[in-house]
């Protein structure tokens, strides 16, 4: 289920509730088409879709449900795509380890957060045990 909100700036924002693994696929597709509007190259589109996939899956895997917000942003001179993945799940107790990579509490590859940080331009992670997680990442169309 996708909701499209046009804001005053004319830039678009899409909010996708993440409740099951099907929503991961929807979020990926929505992100790809939003990023297309910004003019990203096909390999950049794939990087953005991959980042959305990793963040949305973490929501399902660790928090059960949450939300992914996708938006076109502008910093004055360039456009970009911002992905915000938020949940009210268990939070991350060791943020440093989780972001460094190779660390997983679920037997995964531990490449999600580290990989997303590597492929996006800006990376921000807010989390505390018991109070959920919010990851905000941006890629600029340079």
């Amino acid at each position, binding site marked *: 289920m996708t909701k499209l909100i046009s804001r005053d700036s004319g830039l678009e924002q899409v909010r996708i509730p993440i409740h099951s693994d099907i929503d991961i696929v929807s979020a990926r597709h929505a992100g790809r088409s939003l990023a297309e509007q910004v003019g990203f190259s096909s390999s950049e589109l*794939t990087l953005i879709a*991959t980042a959305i*996939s*990793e963040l949305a899956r973490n929501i*399902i895997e660790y928090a059960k449900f949450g939300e992914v917000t996708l938006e076109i942003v502008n910093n004055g001179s360039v456009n970009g795509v911002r992905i915000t993945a938020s949940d009210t799940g268990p939070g991350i107790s060791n943020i440093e380890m989780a972001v460094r990579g190779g660390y997983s509490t679920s037997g*995964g*590859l531990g490449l999600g957060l580290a*990989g997303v940080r590597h*492929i996006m331009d800006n990376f921000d992670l807010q989390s505390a045990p018991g109070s959920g997680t919010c990851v905000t990442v941006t890629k600029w169309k340079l």
Partner: protein
Amino acid sequence: MAVPILKQSNYLIATIQAALTDQDFVQLRDALVEKVGRFRSRGVIVDVTALDVLDSFASRTLRDLAYMIRLRGAHTVIVGIQPDVAFAMVQLGITLADVSTALDLEEGLAFLDSVDSEQARA
């Protein structure tokens, strides 16, 4: 979205046709592991040409699939990883070490044939 699995002589060919959910990936893995025994297949090809994303979960499931098939005595080849997807996998730090890959279905079949004849000689 079930992935069709075709039996072609000693091989099984699974052609992914659209984006898969995590559940679909796990089902594909289990179906191939089961069918390799049922059809006494010597090789498995998973064609991922249609996939626009191979993230860490999909990659891990493909890797597990290849290991499980190997334990069942057959070989797996992943074919059709697109250039953009390969680039994203490298950027993400994903490795498919120990998993055979080939450019496309034709190359994948040629690879399985060569593995088969090598084993026949040994």
